[in-house]
């Protein structure tokens, strides 16, 4: 049994991908190289400079170590090893008992030492993680969810911990005229985790889903914030049967990852249709023109002259390390999902929506602490709060979905959700009124409890006034009286009309009684 097969059995997931929905092509192989910064670390991978280099003046977040000045030595950030290990565990990777760092030697001006301290598995299995397996879902067919959410899996070849290079900056607009560029080393030495998948993807949509899934996991782990600019980058390998593997680099967003794959598949298929062989090469994604263009010839792996970093002795993690990290790890989305379904008794669908965004899920948890009714709370979040967010989005481009959801949630508090849930459940407020109050609460930021008090004070309890409204409705729509003898819902329909007229102020019990009286009288 191979390592992957035994792992599949442990995890109880099927390795065979569900490829029969018409959009996948057996002849296409897509693999990913994902670089995720450990943005939640305080300091860089090998020195005491800030991990958060953003918004610092160029080259001010540097020291002799991350500038690679003569004589400086790297000092490994222990927390980075722990964070990377958490990522490995969440992707079901093995963690070796000993890890080693290697030097990858190549010249590029953004690399202060002209070598990158990274990990390398060709001489020994010593990167922080290897042989992982993770399932994700292709849930793009909303209507037929249960049928289409069969598991898809991707194998993780290896995960390695390494340092980010600096940044080369071309002055805007005239990079071709300028005969110079600027280098900012503020980013140099930031801890980066590289995740290399096997070429198990068959289409661009699956890649997008997978990327969303793992960045969500990293957010749950509290190791990386994928919303920060440049925090997560992704290179793509695409090959179409009969042709060689093409690597696409320089892709700045997940949306463009999807686009570049679609472009590249089309390009390669077109070539092979014309009997032109696809050669192995590295191409760059041209963000403006939305095409891939050939890059300089890719250096062969061996030209990097890898050898073990002599300044960092091999690190012995020991056999109990994985368990130790696992026991102290934050709850993973999949574990949260299980809790919502098993303990909170929420539906799979609702639970799924909640966990898909950590901010939403955390919001739900916070609201529960104030008023413990999973059903009611989740209902208000999923059906009211998020659908309002989605409505907003329909009028705008769909980019940065998670940012918008966060933005929306940021000015609604868990207290408001808890209050409205409590009103409905304990004071049996009419759901329509509750929605109305909730809408006002979101707009004004006022507490639903306050708003309902106002409604209570201004409530119309005067029978004469209510009778006047009933009279108005019945004279406008005379057919209602006839229908009332056969249709028992007419009374409620009239109540709705009156509520609308009075802005929800009419006492519902009294009004319903008076409606019934007047229908029967007629």
């Amino acid at each position, binding site marked *: 049994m191979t390592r992957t097969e035994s792992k599949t059995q442990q995890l109880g997931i099927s390795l065979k991908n569900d490829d029969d929905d018409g959009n996948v092509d057996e002849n296409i192989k897509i693999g990913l190289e994902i670089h995720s910064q450990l943005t939640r670390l305080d300091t860089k991978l090998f020195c005491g400079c800030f991990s958060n280099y953003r918004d610092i003046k160029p080259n001010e977040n540097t020291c002799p170590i991350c500038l690679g000045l*003569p*004589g*400086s030595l790297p000092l490994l950030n222990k927390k980075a090893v722990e964070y990377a290990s958490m990522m490995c565990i969440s992707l079901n990777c093995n963690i070796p008992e000993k890890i080693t760092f290697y030097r990858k*030697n190549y010249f590029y001006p953004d690399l202060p030492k002209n070598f990158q301290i990274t990990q390398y598995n060709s*001489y020994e299995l010593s990167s922080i993680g290897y042989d992982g397996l993770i399932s994700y879902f292709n849930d793009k067919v909303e209507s037929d969810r249960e049928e289409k959410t069969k598991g898809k899996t991707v194998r993780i070849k290896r995960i390695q911990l390494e340092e980010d290079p600096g940044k080369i900056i071309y002055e805007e607009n005239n990079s071709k005229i300028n005969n110079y560029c600027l280098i900012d080393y503020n980013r140099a030495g930031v801890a980066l985790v590289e995740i290399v998948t096997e070429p198990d993807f068959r289409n661009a949509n699956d890649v997008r889903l997978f990327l969303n899934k793992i960045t969500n996991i990293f957010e749950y782990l509290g190791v990386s914030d994928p919303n920060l600019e440049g925090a997560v980058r992704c290179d793509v390998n695409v090959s179409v049967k009969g042709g060689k593997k093409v690597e696409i680099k320089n892709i700045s967003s997940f949306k463009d990852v999807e686009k570049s794959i679609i472009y590249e598949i089309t390009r390669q298929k077109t070539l092979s249709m014309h009997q032109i062989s696809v050669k192995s090469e590295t191409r760059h994604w041209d963000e403006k023109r939305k095409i891939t263009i050939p890059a300089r010839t890719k250096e062969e792996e061996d*030209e990097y*002259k890898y*050898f073990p970093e*002599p*300044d960092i002795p091999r690190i012995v993690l020991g056999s109990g390390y994985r368990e130790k990290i696992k026991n102290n790890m934050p709850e993973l989305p999949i574990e949260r999902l299980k809790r919502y379904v098993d303990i909170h008794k929420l539906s799979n669908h609702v639970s799924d929506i909640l966990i898909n965004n950590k901010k939403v899920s955390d919001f739900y948890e916070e609201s529960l602490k104030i008023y413990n009714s999973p059903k009611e709370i989740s209902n208000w979040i999923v059906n009211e709060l998020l659908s309002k967010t989605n409505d907003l989005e329909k009028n705008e481009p769909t980019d940065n979905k998670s940012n918008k959801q966060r933005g929306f949630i940021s000015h609604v508090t868990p207290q408001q959700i808890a209050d409205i849930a409590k009103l409905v459940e304990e004071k049996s407020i009419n759901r329509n009124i509750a929605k109305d109050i909730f809408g006002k609460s979101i707009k004004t930021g006022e507490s639903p409890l306050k708003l309902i008090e106002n409604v209570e004070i201004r409530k119309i309890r005067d029978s004469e006034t209510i009778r006047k409204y009933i009279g108005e409705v019945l004279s406008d729509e005379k057919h209602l009286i006839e229908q009332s003898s056969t249709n028992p819902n007419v009374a409620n329909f009239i109540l709705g009309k009156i509520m609308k007229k009075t802005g929800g102020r009419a006492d519902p019990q009294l009004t319903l009684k008076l409606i019934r009286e007047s229908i029967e009288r007629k």
Partner: protein
Amino acid sequence: MGMLLALGYDKMTNLHKLAGYQVSQKIKNQEIFAEEYISLVFERISNVDSKINSFISKNHESALLKAKQIDKKIRNNEKLGSLLGIPIGIKDNISVLGLKTTCASKMLQEYVSPYNATVVDRLEKQDALIIGKLNMDEFGMGTSSEFSHYGAVHNPWNQDYVAGGSSGGSAAAVSSLQIPISLGSDTGGSIRCPSSFCSVIGIKPTYGLVSRYGLVSYSNSLEQIGPMARTIIDIAMTLNTICGKDSSDSTSTTAATLDQQFEYKINTVDGVLGKNYKVGIIDNLILSSESQVMETVFKKIDLLKKHGFDVQKTKINYSDFALAAYYVIATAEASSNLSRFDNIRYGFSHNPQGYEWNSYSSHVRSNFGDEVKRRILVGSFVLSAGYYGKYYLKAQKVRNAIKNEFNKLFKLFDVLILPTMPILPFKIGEKGAKPLDLFNLDIYTILANLAGIPAMSIPAGFSKKGLPIGLQILSNEFNEQILIDIATFFENKDKFNEWIPNI
């Protein structure tokens, strides 16, 4: 400087002959001012160094300032450091804040270090005066200190001869009585070879005993910083100051996991004899050295026997493979370490106009010296596509075999004895054209670097022409005290601390 007159002319002229510990004592006892002494040292340097060429840069202004502060400290009865007022020279591959760290290379001609090496911090904390940066073979690559952008270092015993390398400036400055103590670095013998050629004491400590933070790396897994001086007390004092765990160097913390406080002592000769050290004589290497070297070493062995040491012959089998393993590991690491010198961030003045990155990089890198280029080429080759297993991995296996061989030897012996260098100092320019001849000179010294064990060179005598010969003593890891004890014995019997060149 009224005090100067009070001391009398004769006393002042001999001050430069004092060992570091004696200087420190006199300053502490207020027999001399630190300021007076340092001024005298400046004068000595300006008189002598034109013949030796041991300094690349001088730090006189701030050394003087520091000396004045020391005098003030004494007046104010403040706490005083153990290296009070002792001027110490630093090999120019060890970083000193605000001073150039050129590594004797054009490539770092204008590079000023913005930080102190850990060893420099520790010296300054004990009130030592950092007096300047010392000449060497470019990036530590050489056995003669001829391969320097700043010219060859001359041997104080005969200025037509090489001082040895690569820490030639560190040895020559101490030998020629310019300064009492210096720091060198030793990757394959770079402290011991010039110590032998210039007749001073030099120790390469156990790998990991002294922090490498701030030492410009040549071969990270082999090299160590160590002190060089004319007396064993100065060696012990300086080693006590610079050794021990450093959180900035991961190889120092893992090697010295014992977490012990290292405090080396100077024992009496009777005390040393009382320890009944077992001495192993590396017979095969003694016999294959030059006859005058061999004879001198045998005299030292006789002296040991005479005083009742248990002396037995032994040999090292793997020495034939050691040289190949050493040059594979050292050049591989060097080729990677030196790749950062592309003159983009620091280096020397050169207008990049008209170049793109790659052409600029290869153009400026042509300014490395020939020996450095040779080693970068060799190192790049052994690490290149498909050769890793054939060279680098195999060299590491040889290294392990050598370690094991020493482990076995140190079950039988406390200390091993062999010549530091198989030959006598040679004339400047004599061997320049034959790189392999120079490589072969390293055979006796690289063993300790490959095994990570401590090794010391002490003055053993002179050739018929008056050229110094060194005796090398090895002990097991973290057993520096044994080396100090054996050196104490010889210093006491031979009085080699009184062997001074006429310059």
